[in-house]
């Protein structure tokens, strides 16, 4: 089987242990290949193309939908797990099923939450992060004025930049496409979102246009910014560091949800890992048994704990997992799958949504406005033009 590389140590160790337990229980040996985040997509695609390679792939969110015809039907396993563990979240079901049949099994999702320094916000009289966008902007202007700005990535950062740019547009009611996959990004809502984004960007630490995925982690842990948006990995790294300075940062670090925009509900995005088995596998039953085994409480709960919630759970019963109450700072990550919107919102999940995502259409639309290269209107029109190329029929 093939899976992406880790961002938190516990993830890989427990995944390996659980796999060994499966081998011990069933006698079926399983080899795990680990691939960098960027390379997982092409490798999966090649396997689907040539009908040879890993039997099971822990793929990125919408990837299995590109290969619907080559996916092993997992309906029986998914139904069994759903019934046993309180049901799948709607987002997990959307990502896992195609035409009423389960083609993939969501195993977890990483979501971005605001990761902030309580002491820095406290000096300005903030106890926590405001939950509305106006209050949030005001807080950032004050933070900027007092020399402890926040910062969000605007380079071509697969995880971080996509996370907040999608939140921004969705928070103001914009979306790339409607329910019928018609491109609707060039709307007054988007323009308003871009204006807000520019105002927010003006309060950031300089240089975020060049930030890639690891940048905000580094800068935050160096104490240069008061907040950023990230998975739990920053906290994990600080907490488990032998360095006293980092320990102190961990102590001072809290998590909060992204503020809610005019649409009146949370609009975060999450990055899902979606296990699929190819129908070319000579061992379909072993593949299914393996996936089921990994999702059973004895294995899954330990994995979740080892990740300290980096990959949020897709089955409702795991809400009660010990990890979410082990540390109050974990709790914000409990509802990642329950609350996030899917890539390609409001349209279908598939090739076009994946292509728009990997061409950074949303991110670059926001970045071009922040950089002052385009007005919000121009950027929205350009985003529409680029998205249409992928959503053509």
């Amino acid at each position, binding site marked *: 089987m093939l899976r992406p590389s880790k961002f938190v140590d516990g993830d890989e160790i427990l995944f390996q242990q659980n796999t060994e337990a499966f081998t011990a229980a069933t006698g079926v040996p399983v080899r795990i290949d680990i691939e960098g985040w960027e390379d997982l*997509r*092409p490798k999966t*695609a090649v396997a689907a193309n040539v009908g040879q390679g890993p039997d099971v792939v822990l793929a990125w969110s919408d990837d299995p939908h590109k290969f619907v015809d080559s996916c092993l039907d997992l309906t029986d396993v998914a139904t069994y797990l759903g019934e046993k563990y309180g049901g799948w979240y709607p987002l997990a079901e959307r990502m896992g099923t195609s035409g009423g049949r389960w083609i993939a099994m969501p195993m977890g999702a990483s979501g971005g939450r605001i990761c902030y320094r309580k002491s820095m916000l406290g000096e300005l009289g903030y106890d926590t992060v405001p939950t509305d966008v106006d209050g949030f902007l005001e807080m950032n202007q004050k933070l900027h004025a007092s020399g402890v700005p926040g910062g969000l990535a605007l380079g*071509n950062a697969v995880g971080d930049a996509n996370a907040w740019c999608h939140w921004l547009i969705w928070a103001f009611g914009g979306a790339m496409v409607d329910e019928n996959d018609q491109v609707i990004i060039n709307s007054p809502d988007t323009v308003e979102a871009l204006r807000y984004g520019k105002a927010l960007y003006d309060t950031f630490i300089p*240089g975020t*246009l*060049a930030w890639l995925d690891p940048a905000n982690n580094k800068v935050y842990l160096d104490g240069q910014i008061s907040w950023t948006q990230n998975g739990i990995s920053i906290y994990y790294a600080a907490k488990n560091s032998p360095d006293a300075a980092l320990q102190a940062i961990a102590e001072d670090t809290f998590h909060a949800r992204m503020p809610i925009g005019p649409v009146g509900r949370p609009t975060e995005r999450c990055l899902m890992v979606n296990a699929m088995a190819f129908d070319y596998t000579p061992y379909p039953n072993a593949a299914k048994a393996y996936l089921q085994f990994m999702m059973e409480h004895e294995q899954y709960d330990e994995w979740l704990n080892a990740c300290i919630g980096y990959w949020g759970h897709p089955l409702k019963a795991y809400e009660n997992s010990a990890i979410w109450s082990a540390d109050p700072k974990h709790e914000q990550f409990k509802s990642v799958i329950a609350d996030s919107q899917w890539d390609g919102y409001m349209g279908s999940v598939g090739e076009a949504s994946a*292509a728009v995502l990997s061409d950074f259409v949303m991110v670059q639309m926001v970045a071009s406005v922040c*950089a002052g290269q385009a007005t919000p209107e121009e950027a929205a029109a350009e985003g529409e033009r680029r998205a249409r190329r*992928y959503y053509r029929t």
Partner: protein
Amino acid sequence: MSCGRGRTIGWLARLFDNKTFLIFICMLPCLGLLLLFLTYPLGLGVWLAFTDTRIGRAGEFVGLFNYELLFTDRVFWMAVWWTVFYTVAATILKFGLGLWLALLLNHYVPCKSVLRAIILVPWIVPTVLSAIAFWWIYDPQFSIISYVLVDVLGWRDTYIDFLGQPWNARWSLIAANVWRGIPFVAICLLAGLQTISPSLYEAAMIDGASPWQRFWHITFPMLMPILAVVLTFSVIFTFTDFQLVYAITRGGPVNSTHLMATLAFQRAIPGGQLGEGAAIAVAMIPFLVAATFFSYFALARRKWQQGGDDD
């Protein structure tokens, strides 16, 4: 029986005595390698550019559709413009500095061979490693240059935003490419310089030529053939650069540093649009062919320099 066999051997022996046949046979493995590893991938690339192939799905022939798309694509034109600018600016700097370095090294300097070996280091280090080093040097928050200017010398108040502004990012990339490319140019030109006979300089000195006249009338013309070849190679290497840009900026900020090669990769592999990516790659061919013609032209001039006619 034996007579027939002898005739067969005689026929084979005659065949192998035939020079044309022998040349053909000896070239066959080489031809096979060329076809398999050069012609086939190139042909496949050109063919893909005419299809709408995506990763994981075979495509259909769509004619010039991909090129029509690219023609109206601002990102593509920006990449073309930037690739040309990057190549021209980096090449001029590399040759200016490389030639200077070669001239210095050609004179007497202590520990000459050690120095020459050291100069090759930037070229030997794997590109990705040096790219990552530059990525740190250009980091918006942790840059050593910013640190020295702001925190040590106090010449500036703010950190330099190397990769966040389009022009800063562009010049930063050019600087990294020049740093990497100088050794190749310097070492090749040094080899050229050493083939120039000292007696020419002695004769010129007897005639009272100044150092500048000696450079302009002896060194430069004698160096011309090798200069042209190195120039062609350098242009091709720079034009098709990928690693530096991909590792340092990923084409950002907002696509302003996408080279044609990085854009082709971005569209074809992570984006899954193999056909379109191939079309971008194929669009590089005319530029490279032009560079190759330039080299032919320069080689022809070499003949003229040696007393023949230009072809």
